[in-house]
Structure formats: structure tokens, C-alpha cells
């Protein structure tokens, strides 16, 4: 606990997250007990401490509940098509490298329909931060099975229980080349805020998986209670293991959750490689690309 003390006048006027939100769009569409808003809170606070010029931060979302994040953040924001925020972000970043580009979307958007784009952006080490809110389900369309749904959990399109192996997202991200990989839950707000700040400051493809409750379509259907019950489950069953081998962090239905910062490494990002390569190839004839 910090010992700094503040006067009421200094802190009272506004919720600190409000300056990062489009308040004229509140209330948002998310259900009671949904964890997406919590992650947005953390993101707002991460922006606050990031030192970034917010006019130069762009946020790109796909489609789905988390896909709505872009529309609520008071940044240049792009709500694209289902599964395609990463290729949109690719064009945006390459066109104007001075932008900090953040892709904020859900597990179905980024890893099912958008899975191909995810692995290639990581391989290329494009300079962008990916925040994936994983609620294990398709929320907006009514609770269908996702590539993250744990084995034996039920969904409207897996009414007898899921038998498909889900993705281990941190392992996938690391193997494809991400330079920063972390997983937290919506309960770990301070860790998550710190991770978001670190990811924003990292050059290259950074990836944060955030487990978040979907009370309406995941936990209720699976008789896991409401959002609060899921948050308490995260609290009681999470184990922080920084730097652990991502092979070991796969998730089982209501099993132990390994959280932490798993990967933080250096690798030249796309434009850096491109400029170096062409400088070597063309010498003085080549003007390094800066947008």
C-alpha cells in the first residue's frame, strides 16, 4: 500500500477510467457480471501510466462482445469484420508506424475465424498488442462452442458437452513468435493492468490472454453460478507462475489456472527487419521506411 495521500479535491471529480471512455456511449451493452468491462478498466489505467500520446493510439476490434471495446474507448477506434482485426491492424500499423496499434477482441474472433491471421502476425512479429478476452464461448451469438471451450463444458452447439481439444493460447502465441505472452484473469486487476502497460511498451507482437466470466452464456449454462462465482473461482484456483513453460498452461474445465508473464523476449519487429534487409540489398538507394 502506498503512503501517498491525496486531497478530495484532487481525486473526486471523475472516475479515472472515464477520460479513456466515450462516456456519451454509456451504458455499455455488456451483461451484469461480464468481465469485459473489468478488463477495459485495467486497459484505461494502463494507458494512463503508459506515457503514450493517446492521439497516436489506435484500437482495432473484430466482432463479438469484446469486439465492442473499440467503440467504447476514446481513441481512434476501428470496429472491423468478424475475425479480421489483425489484418486491418497490420495495414494500419504499416501505413503509419508512429501509431501504437492495439487489437482488442474475443477468443472466437481472434482464434477461430481469425486464427490464421493471429499466427501469421505473430510469425511476422508485427508491432502490435493483442488483448484477447477469453470467456470460453461465443457470447454475442448466444453461447456456441469456441476453440477455447474446455473439454466437457456445454454450449448451445455442443449440448452434450465439448469433446474437441481447446487451444492453449499462450503456447500458440509463443510458438508462433510473440515477444510478450501473459495470461491473467479478470480477478487479477492489478497484475493485468501492469501486464497491459508492459505489453504497450513492448516492441513487436505482444499477447495477453484475459480469462473473463460470461455469466449469461457460459457459467449459467454450465451451472457455475454467476459472474461473481467465476471471479471467486479465479481467485481461489489461479496460481501465478511467471516464466513457466507455456506447454504446461493449458486449461481444463474448472481446473487449475496458471497465470503470469510467460514470455518476454527480444526479436526484431517487421518494419525493422524490412528496413535492415532493404538497406543491405539496396544501400544508399533505399530510404528507410517511416510511413
Amino acid at each position, binding site marked *: *500500500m*502506498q*503512503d*501517498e*495521500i*491525496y*486531497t*478530495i479535491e484532487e*481525486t*473526486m471529480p471523475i*472516475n*479515472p*477510467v*472515464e477520460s479513456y*471512455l466515450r462516456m456519451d456511449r*454509456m*451504458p*455499455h451493452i*455488456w*451483461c*451484469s*457480471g*461480464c*468481465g*469485459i*468491462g*473489468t478488463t*477495459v*478498466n*485495467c486497459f484505461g*489505467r494502463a494507458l494512463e501510466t503508459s506515457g503514450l500520446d493517446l492521439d497516436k493510439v489506435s484500437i482495432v476490434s473484430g466482432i463479438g462482445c469484446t469486439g465492442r471495446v473499440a467503440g467504447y474507448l476514446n481513441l481512434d477506434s476501428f470496429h472491423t469484420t468478424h475475425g479480421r482485426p489483425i489484418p486491418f491492424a497490420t495495414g494500419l500499423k504499416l501505413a503509419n508506424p508512429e501509431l501504437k496499434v492495439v487489437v482488442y477482441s474475443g477468443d472466437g474472433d481472434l482464434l477461430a475465424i481469425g486464427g490464421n491471421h493471429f499466427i501469421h502476425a505473430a510469425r511476422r512479429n508485427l508491432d502490435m498488442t493483442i488483448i484477447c478476452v477469453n470467456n470460453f464461448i461465443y457470447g454475442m451469438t448466444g453461447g456456441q462452442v469456441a476453440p477455447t471451450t474446455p473439454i466437457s463444458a456445454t454450449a448451445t452447439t455442443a449440448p452434450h458437452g465439448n469433446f474437441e481439444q481447446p487451444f492453449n493460447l499462450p503456447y500458440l502465441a509463443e510458438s508462433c513468435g510473440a515477444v510478450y505472452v501473459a495470461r491473467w484473469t*479478470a*480477478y487479477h*486487476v*492489478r497484475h493485468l*493492468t501492469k501486464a497491459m502497460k508492459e505489453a504497450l511498451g513492448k516492441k513487436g507482437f505482444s499477447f495477453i490472454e484475459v480469462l473473463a466470466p460470461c455469466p449469461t452464456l457460459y457459467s449459467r449454462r454450465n451451472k457455475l453460478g*454467476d*459472474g*461473481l462465482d467465476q*471471479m*471467486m473461482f479465479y*481467485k481461489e484456483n489461479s496460481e501465478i507462475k511467471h516464466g513457466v513453460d507455456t506447454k504446461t498452461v493449458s486449461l481444463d474445465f474448472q481446473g487449475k489456472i496458471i497465470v503470469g508473464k510467460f514470455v518476454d523476449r527480444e526479436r526484431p519487429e517487421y518494419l525493422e527487419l524490412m528496413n535492415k534487409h532493404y538497406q543491405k540489398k539496396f544501400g544508399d538507394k533505399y530510404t528507410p521506411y517511416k510511413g
Partner: protein
Amino acid sequence: MTTTQEKKVSGSVVITVERCKGCGFCVEFCPTEALKLSEQYNAKGYHPPVLVSQELCNGCDMCGLLCPDFAIYGFRIKKDKIKE
């Protein structure tokens, strides 16, 4: 307000009652158990949080970080201010 003199920091919360969807995150995870759900309903039919007692709140803003609806935040109060 005499007890606050023994605390290093003191704080309070601001609650936007009508934005609350009653998820209870702030109440459950408040480190000093300073919040409870109100008996009252807001216009949407949810029970918003209220401070059990301001003396319990240290203004850590854990509630603000957790709140998915941006309906609450905590802040710190200067000690001598409280004494007044």
C-alpha cells in the same frame, strides 16, 4: 471521525448508482470489507453498493479497477482533512 486518526490513509468511494448492474465484484473483493450491496434498487432493478462505513475505506480503488460498469471508484483523503 476520531478513529481515522489511527489510520495511515483514509479514503472513500464515488458510486454512480444508475450505472451499476449489481454484479457484486466490488463488495466481494474489497480488501477492507468496506462495501455492501444496498437494500435499495436502482432504476434497472439492481442493488448498487454502499459504503458500510467510510472509516473502513482506505481509498485503494480496487473496486474501481474491478467494476465492469465503471460505476464506482475509490480515492484517498488527506488525513488532516478528515480531522477537520
